């Protein structure tokens, strides 16, 4: 379970992006965080990843205060997350190498870490076997994101954070990867939190949608979208309804 407990965050002396903001997400939920640019959605994701520290208040994950990146949290960014000098296989294995580098210290790697996970199984699962020896510069944007997903899932996360993961991809590839994400979410029993500025993506990926407004954000505005994550949701009238509602609320915001 993720809890934001009276969280305040600001850059320098400006208006706080979050002020006394409390919110929680339960295990296995699929969340989308939606809002216009500058609303602080990426900041929130970085806070949840343990890459930024709150100005005030607390972030608790499974009851533990978050102070640094947590070994069981996976993070996937829009782009530039892969090492350009490493092949697909080496990139996918990077997290494992990192864990071997530090050993199971409970800080950089889980205490019970056993270096046995098989990267190749994940490459195969994500259809990357033929790309294994190529460099990120040689493969398509969709394949790059698949590599990033493989690299994260190899580490067996329970929480997956994604920041605009598919916004630089063309529409068919984007839908394909959205479906894949939902498939993996169900299969791996992940808690999923996706940051997006696209209403359609929030509707597809979020069973619950956290709508952020221009700062300061003080209260979470949550929209329930229980039908999301079911097959063919894109074709259902509920999909259009939720898109319409999100659009309306964003215009008010």
């Amino acid at each position, binding site marked *: 379970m993720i809890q934001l407990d009276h969280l305040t965050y600001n850059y320098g002396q400006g208006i706080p992006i979050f002020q006394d903001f409390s919110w929680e997400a339960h295990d296995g939920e699929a969340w989308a965080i939606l809002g216009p640019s500058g609303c602080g959605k990426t900041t929130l994701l970085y806070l949840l*990843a343990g890459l930024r520290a709150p100005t005030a208040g607390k972030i608790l994950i499974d009851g533990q205060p978050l102070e640094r990146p947590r070994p069981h*949290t996976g993070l996937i960014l829009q782009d530039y997350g892969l090492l350009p*000098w490493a092949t697909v296989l080496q990139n996918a294995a*990077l997290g494992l*190498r990192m864990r071997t580098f530090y050993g199971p210290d409970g800080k950089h*790697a889980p205490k019970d870490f056993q270096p046995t996970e098989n990267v190749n199984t994940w490459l195969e699962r994500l259809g990357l076997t033929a790309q294994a020896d190529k460099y990120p510069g040689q493969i398509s944007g969709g394949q790059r994101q698949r590599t990033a997903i493989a690299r994260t899932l190899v580490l067996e996360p329970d929480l997956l954070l994604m920041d605009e993961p598919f916004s630089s991809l063309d529409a068919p590839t984007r839908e394909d990867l959205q479906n894949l994400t939902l498939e993996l979410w169900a299969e791996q029993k992940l808690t999923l939190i996706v940051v997006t500025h696209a209403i359609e993506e929030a509707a597809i990926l979020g069973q619950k949608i956290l709508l952020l407004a221009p700062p300061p954000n003080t209260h979470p505005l949550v929209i329930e979208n229980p039908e999301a994550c079911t097959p063919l949701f894109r074709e259902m009238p509920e999909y259009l309804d939720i898109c319409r509602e999100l659009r309306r609320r964003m215009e008010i915001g």
Partner: protein
Amino acid sequence: MKRRDLLLAVIALLMLWQVAAMLLRQPILPSPIAVAGVFWRELSSGELGEHFLVSLWRVLASTFLAILIAAPLGVILGQSQRLNNLLSPVIYLTYPIPKVVLVPIVLLFFGIGDLPKIVIIFLILFFQILVLVRDQAAAIRPELIQSVRSLGAGRRALFRYVYLPASVPAVLTALRLSVGTAVAVLYVAELFATQRGLGYYIYYSGSTLFDYAAMYAGIVALSMMGLGLYFIVDWLERRIAPWQFAR
């Protein structure tokens, strides 16, 4: 570039030299065939080889020293905005100074022998590597750093898995850019306070012995060293930075 084209270029240059020598018919421009003969004679007597090795040692020692010191320093400066702000005015002012003008000073301070020559080449390579590696490290996208941190990387792993590999192409580019200058400055440095090295050999053969063929043989040897070093850097780039060529 194809090997065959390179070979053709070598042959064309040699022919040009031969024609010029035949037209001029002066001792100050011996033909390539005459120079090749002297080159072989000097090489088998061991003299040219020894000067060559002395010069090569000076270049290699200063190159390794420069990489060893400048590359990590560049990574540190590239990572730390604060340190970089502190030091960049100093680098900005000292980087463009042609290091060859420092030769007399370095000679005064370090005397005769190998050390002053190594120091002067070191200075050239040091600044070149420092600046390129620093800029490369500073240009690494924050998204990449954050992704790798989210995989569990702390400072040490970031250095090992991100900053270090990112600086490899910068070091090689720096070497590629400065290896020619390094050999040129080596020549100048070897004109003074030494009786070993190709610079000395060329100067001594030409201006004291008036053995122009030997002077040319020395020049050929020094050129071959510069060319060889350039080829090695080229080969290393393909070998240890292959992603730059994969398309």
